[in-house]
């Protein structure tokens, strides 16, 4: 019997992941609540009504990164607890399909989170709000950074799910690996959030983010089979 193609299998897993989250919302709700709480904490800790420039950019990306860790930590939970990983591994499909599907799942969760978290950030903390056109630049940075977080997050989650200290492993591995994403994304959005008015999007940092995404996508593709084997 021949199995489905890689993309057909990835579509099946992605559909299942989204159905599970819709059926019993846990990850997205936790990520959104965390983001809102983090903004309140930043508001009081910084003792400022609004932030702009580098500080605003840093607040946004630290919040997104830490909220993303919640999603990374839960990425394989249902598979581990209910045997779904073995269920997938028993199917005659290329195991890379799981990498594609889980990366897309986390990427979708991050975008969904940001639909709530970025406007909330604008309302609660951001100083002068950028113009509508400048938000297009922010969106581009969000997409590039989310891709990097999703790829690295999936890789780390696949390593952590096989260990007993998975929560520790997730944070210990993911945070250092994602430092370049935070640097690139915060440098890229800082001019847009400047108090003196939105500056132009620095192409150099967009290129850094795109290169990071490419390198880790190739690394994940090369390693993933090995990681999900026994």
């Amino acid at each position, binding site marked *: *019997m*021949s*199995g*489905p193609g890689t993309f*057909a*299998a990835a*579509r*099946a*897993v992605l*559909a*299942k992941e989204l*159905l*599970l989250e819709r*059926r*019993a919302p846990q990850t997205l709700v936790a990520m959104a609540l965390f983001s809102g709480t983090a903004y309140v904490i930043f508001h009081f800790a910084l003792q400022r009504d609004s932030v702009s420039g580098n500080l605003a950019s840093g607040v946004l990306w630290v919040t997104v990164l830490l909220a993303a860790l919640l999603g990374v930590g839960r990425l394989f939970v*249902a598979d581990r607890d*209910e*045997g*779904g990983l*073995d*269920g*997938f*591994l*028993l*199917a*005659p*499909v*290329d195991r890379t399909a799981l990498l594609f599907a889980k990366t897309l799942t986390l990427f979708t969760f991050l975008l969904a989170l940001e639909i709530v978290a970025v406007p909330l950030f604008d309302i609660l903390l951001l100083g002068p709000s950028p113009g509508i056109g400048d938000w297009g630049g922010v969106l581009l940075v969000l997409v590039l950074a989310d891709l990097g977080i999703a790829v690295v997050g999936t890789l780390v989650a696949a390593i952590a799910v096989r260990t007993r200290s998975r929560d520790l492993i997730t944070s210990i591995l993911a945070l250092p690996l994602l430092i370049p994403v935070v640097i690139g994304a915060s440098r890229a959005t800082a001019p847009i959030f400047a108090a003196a008015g939105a500056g132009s999007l620095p192409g150099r940092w967009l290129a850094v983010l795109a290169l990071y995404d490419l390198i880790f996508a190739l690394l994940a593709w090369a390693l993933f089979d090995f990681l999900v*084997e*026994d």
Partner: protein
Amino acid sequence: MSAIELDGLARRYGDRTALADVTLTLEEGATLIVFGPNGAGKSTLLRVLATLLRPSAGHARIFGSDVRTEGWRVRGRIGFLGHDALLYGDLTAAENLSYQARLHGLRDARERIAQLLEAVGLTARADDRVHTYSRGMVQRLAACRAVLHDPPVLLLDEPRANLDPAAAELLEPLLGRASGRTRVVTSHDPAGGLAEGDVALGLRAGRPVLLRPAADVSAAEIGELYR
């Protein structure tokens, strides 16, 4: 061609030997019944055959395909029923089977799913989430998952655990000798196991200590394995 060929098959977890030196041949349509106390290596044997664990040494072939190098081909030919149901509790029975059907590349699986649910008496609960099921019902649904793609080989780890006699009878056409499939079945029931097996394998500490036609083995010999 033999359905299953094992040649010096071994599996270690670090320094611990879970399975060692298993060599046997099983003809198509035959049943290998595997006995042994807890930790003897029965589940490890099944997981190696299912490609969920890599052999540490030796070879295992299913219909000529090596589990180590041709896992993709092997996975399309086996149905695995282990201690875990491999089902998502927040999905319904129909959704779980539909997901597995997509992973196996089955077209028009709706009819096949309906037939299987009917066969195990779960049609009325097809749209209920699995976490609302009793353990026996979950086991019946797991049996549907294992045979959904009509595999010629079944790997069954104590398949009647959690089942009452009526439910066990319900699963007989799917998992039993009547299914016509080649089967590797683990059991702790000497009399029942020997009755349904063609070849008996006894394991102790991962090593084969008994390998004979089931008809030539007595329940007392199997009992000795557990002492």
